[in-house]
C-alpha cells in the first residue's frame, strides 16, 4: 500500500510536466489552427466584412460563387496549371533523380546545382524569369531562334502565360529531386546486381526495379505537388503585380481568394472559397490514395 501511495504523486507530477512542456504548443494549436479552422467554416456562412458579421446567410456565399464567372475562371486557370505542372514535375523529377544518381565524378556538385534555384526568393525568381522570357530581348527566345524554333510570346499571351509559370516552377524542382534521390538510395543494391546477372539492360532495370520500388515516394510527391499547385499564389501574384494579366489568364484561385478577402473585404465569400479549395484538395488526395492500392508497391509486401 505504501508503495502505491509513493507512486501516485510521482505519476501526477509527470502528468503536469508533460502538459507544461507542451503548453505553448497547446495554446498555439488552439489559437492558430483549431480556432481559425472552426471560425472560417462559420464565417463562410455569413456576410462578414472583416469587422462585423452583418448576417448569417446560410449557403448564399457558395451559391454566389457558383454563379460567378470569375470564380470559375480562376478555378479553370488553377486546374490548367495543375494539369501541366504536376505530370511535368513527376516526369522530370524522376528523370533528373535517375541521372543524378549515376555514379560520376562531380555528382555531388551537379546535385547542388540542381538544388540551388529552390533557395532563391520568389520575387527574385520572378524578376529574372520575366526577363529571360521577354519575347523580344529574353535569352530563351534568343536560344530558340538560334536553333530555328519560333519563340512564343510567354507572359504576353493568354495561351502561354500558364505554361510560363509552370516552366518557372520546374526550375525550382530541386526539392522534389532530392526526395526522389533519397528514395533511390533506399533501393537495395543487390536487386540491380541480380538483374545484371540475368542480363537486364538499363531501361529494363529502370522499368522493373527502380520505378516500382520508387512508387511510395512518387505517391508522396504527387500528393504534395497537387497541394502546392492548387494553392499556388506568390509566383503569379508577383509576376503580374497582383493583376492576373493578360486578360485574367493568370488569376489563380488563391489570388482571387486574396483579392476577395483583402481588397474587396468580402471575407465571408473568401472563406467559402478557402473551404471549397480544402474540399477539392482532400478529394484529390483521396482519389490518388484510392488508386494507390493499384500502383504503389511497398518493399517487403
Amino acid at each position, binding site marked *: 500500500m505504501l508503495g502505491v501511495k509513493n507512486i501516485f504523486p510521482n505519476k501526477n507530477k509527470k502528468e503536469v510536466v508533460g502538459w507544461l512542456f507542451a503548453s505553448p504548443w497547446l495554446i498555439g494549436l488552439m489559437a492558430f489552427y483549431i480556432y481559425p*479552422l472552426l471560425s472560417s467554416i462559420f464565417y463562410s456562412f455569413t456576410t462578414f466584412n472583416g469587422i462585423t458579421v452583418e448576417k448569417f446567410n446560410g449557403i448564399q456565399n457558395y451559391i454566389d460563387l457558383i454563379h460567378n464567372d470569375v470564380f470559375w475562371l480562376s478555378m479553370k486557370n488553377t486546374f490548367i496549371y495543375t494539369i501541366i505542372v504536376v505530370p511535368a514535375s513527376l516526369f522530370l523529377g524522376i528523370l533528373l533523380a535517375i541521372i*543524378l544518381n549515376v555514379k560520376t565524378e562531380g555528382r555531388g556538385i551537379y546535385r547542388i546545382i540542381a538544388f540551388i534555384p529552390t533557395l532563391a526568393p*520568389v520575387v527574385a525568381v520572378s*524578376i*529574372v524569369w520575366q526577363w529571360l522570357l521577354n519575347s523580344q530581348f529574353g*535569352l530563351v527566345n534568343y536560344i530558340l531562334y538560334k536553333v530555328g524554333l519560333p519563340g512564343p510570346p510567354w507572359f504576353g499571351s493568354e495561351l502561354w502565360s500558364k505554361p510560363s509559370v509552370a516552366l518557372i516552377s520546374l526550375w525550382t524542382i530541386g526539392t522534389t529531386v532530392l526526395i526522389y534521390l533519397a528514395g533511390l538510395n533506399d533501393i537495395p543494391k543487390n536487386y540491380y546486381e541480380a538483374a545484371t546477372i540475368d542480363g537486364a539492360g538499363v531501361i529494363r532495370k529502370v522499368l522493373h526495379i527502380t520505378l516500382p520500388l520508387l512508387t511510395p515516394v512518387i505517391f508522396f510527391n504527387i500528393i504534395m505537388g497537387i497541394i502546392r499547385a492548387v494553392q499556388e499564389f506568390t509566383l503569379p501574384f508577383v509576376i503580374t503585380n497582383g493583376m492576373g494579366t493578360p486578360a485574367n489568364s493568370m488569376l489563380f484561385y488563391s489570388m482571387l481568394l486574396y483579392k476577395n478577402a483583402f481588397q474587396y473585404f468580402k471575407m465571408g465569400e473568401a472563406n467559402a472559397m478557402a473551404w471549397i479549395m480544402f474540399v477539392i484538395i482532400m478529394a484529390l488526395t483521396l482519389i490518388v490514395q484510392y488508386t494507390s492500392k493499384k500502383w504503389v508497391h511497398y518493399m517487403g509486401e
Partner: protein
Amino acid sequence: MKKKINEQANNILRHTVLLIISMFFMLPFYIMVSTSFKTQAECFVYPIKWLPENLNFAAYQDVFKIIPFGRYFINTVYITAANVLGVVLTCPLAAYSLARLRWKGREFLFFLTIAVMMIPYQVIMIPIFILFSRMGVIGTYWPLIIPQYFGIPFFIFLLRQFFKGLPKELEDAARIDGCSEFSIFSKIFLPLCKPAILTIAIFQLLNTWNDFTGPLIYLTKSKMYTLQIGLQQFKSVHVTNWPPMMAASVLISLPIIILFFIAQKQFIEGVTFTGVKG
C-alpha cells in the same frame, strides 16, 4: 581496348547531359548577375551580350537610391531573427513532451499535430488576420512573429522523431541521480538534439526570409516592408528598369545561398526528411 573507348564515350555523354541540365539551373543566375552590371541600354541590345561592356556598379547604387534597401534589410533580419528564436525555444519543448514524457492526451495531441499540417494556409489565413486585427496589431511586426513562439507542427514532428530515436538509458541514469525533468531535458536531451534544432532553425530562416504572403497581408507602412515586399513594390513601379531589379535580386538571394554553403548538410537532411514521412 575497345571496352575502354566505349567507357570513355559513355563518360563524355554522361557529362554532356549533366552539363546541359546544369545550364538550365545556372543560366538564370548568370543572367541575373551579368544584367546587374549592365546599363539600361545594354539590356536592349540584340543579339544578346553575354558580358556587360564594363563592370559598372551603377545599378547597385541605384538599388540603395531608389528603394530604402538598407532599411528593408534590417527589417527582414529583425523579423527573421525573432522567428528563428521563437521556433528554437518552443518546438523542442513540445517535441520532447510528445516523444519522451508520458501523460494523458499525449497521443491525441500528436495526432492533432499531424492533422493540422494538412490544413491549407488559405483556410486559416482570414480568421488569424481577424484575430490579430482585434488585438489591434495589424501594421506591426507582431502577427509575423507571435505564431512562431507557439510552435510549428512540422518542426515539432521532425524533432519528436529525433527525440524518439535516442536511447532510454540516458534519462534513467539521470532520474536515478535525482535530476529534475527540466534539467534532464535541457542538460541531456537538448545538447544531443543540436543538429535537428539547427535544421529547423535554418528552415525557419529560409521561410521567413522568403515569406511573401505574410508581410503582404500584415504590413501597411512602406518603411516597415521586408525585402520581398519592398522589391515587389519596386518591380511594380519600375517595370523595365532591369539592371537595378537584377542587382536587388542578387542582393536578396546571396545571403541564403551563402548560408546554404555553410550549412549544406542541414538543408539536405531537412528536405529529405519531408520525403521520409510519406
